């Protein structure tokens, strides 16, 4: 994979167009390499919008964390 291919994939990843799983399948062995690529391009890891096939389970997850944080304060 050329450097420019890597950068293209990292940009797609930062934009939320492709997944970390897809990056692994295309040759990224470690998430450190992804963070390195993001850093070099001045990008940050993507934060997923609340949509997609797991939304209900994610809403439950956020509620659990919220409740735990309140209880743990």
């Amino acid at each position, binding site marked *: 994979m050329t450097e420019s291919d890597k950068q293209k994939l990292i940009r797609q990843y930062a934009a939320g167009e492709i997944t970390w799983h897809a990056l692994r399948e295309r040759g990224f062995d470690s998430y450190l390499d992804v963070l390195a690529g993001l850093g*070099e391009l001045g990008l940050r890891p993507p*934060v997923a919008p609340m949509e997609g096939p797991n939304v209900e389970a994610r809403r439950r997850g956020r509620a659990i964390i919220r409740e735990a944080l309140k209880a*743990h304060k």
Partner: protein
Amino acid sequence: MSKPFSLIVTDTSPLFTLVLADALDALLRPGLPVRIPDAVYVEATRVHGAPGADQIVEWLNAHLDLVTIVPTDVGIDQQRRLEEGRSIRGLGEQAAVEALDRFLRSDPTAEALLLFEDTDIQKRRAVVEERVSLISTGDFLRELEAAGLIQSTDYILDQAAAQGRNVERQREIGEEATTRERLRDQLQQRRGARDLER
């Protein structure tokens, strides 16, 4: 919260993101027991001197009361593959499935919260049952931010990427250090052999 909850780290990405941002303690803020499958832990720490690896080991040792490394069959397979020089790609995720299964079977009232990387959780359907909830690194940080426990989600992610920029340089230093250590070992072995000959 009366049910036994556990936060299961399904992949190395949350660990690397948080360790590079110097924010691993964020995982402990909710006060939930954290379970890291062995294959995920090994994948994150197996290269001595790699960025973040030593900090993860030290952090774990400082919080053995809250953080557990979960032994799995996948982890055993991972060791074998490492010894044989074969790929271990994707084994962390498989170990997380096994760790989840073991956890749910251990207690019929137990509930698990799986910590995922953001793009994977958004696009890939996770096979979950009612006792399993999901959270992404970004969602997790957003909740900490809302609770006033971190400065901001963007700040943490920016820090992780900024430190990531130095990853290659740190790796080179690590490799140089490993080479130096090997050279030192060889010299010591030679000296020892010479001393025995005398």
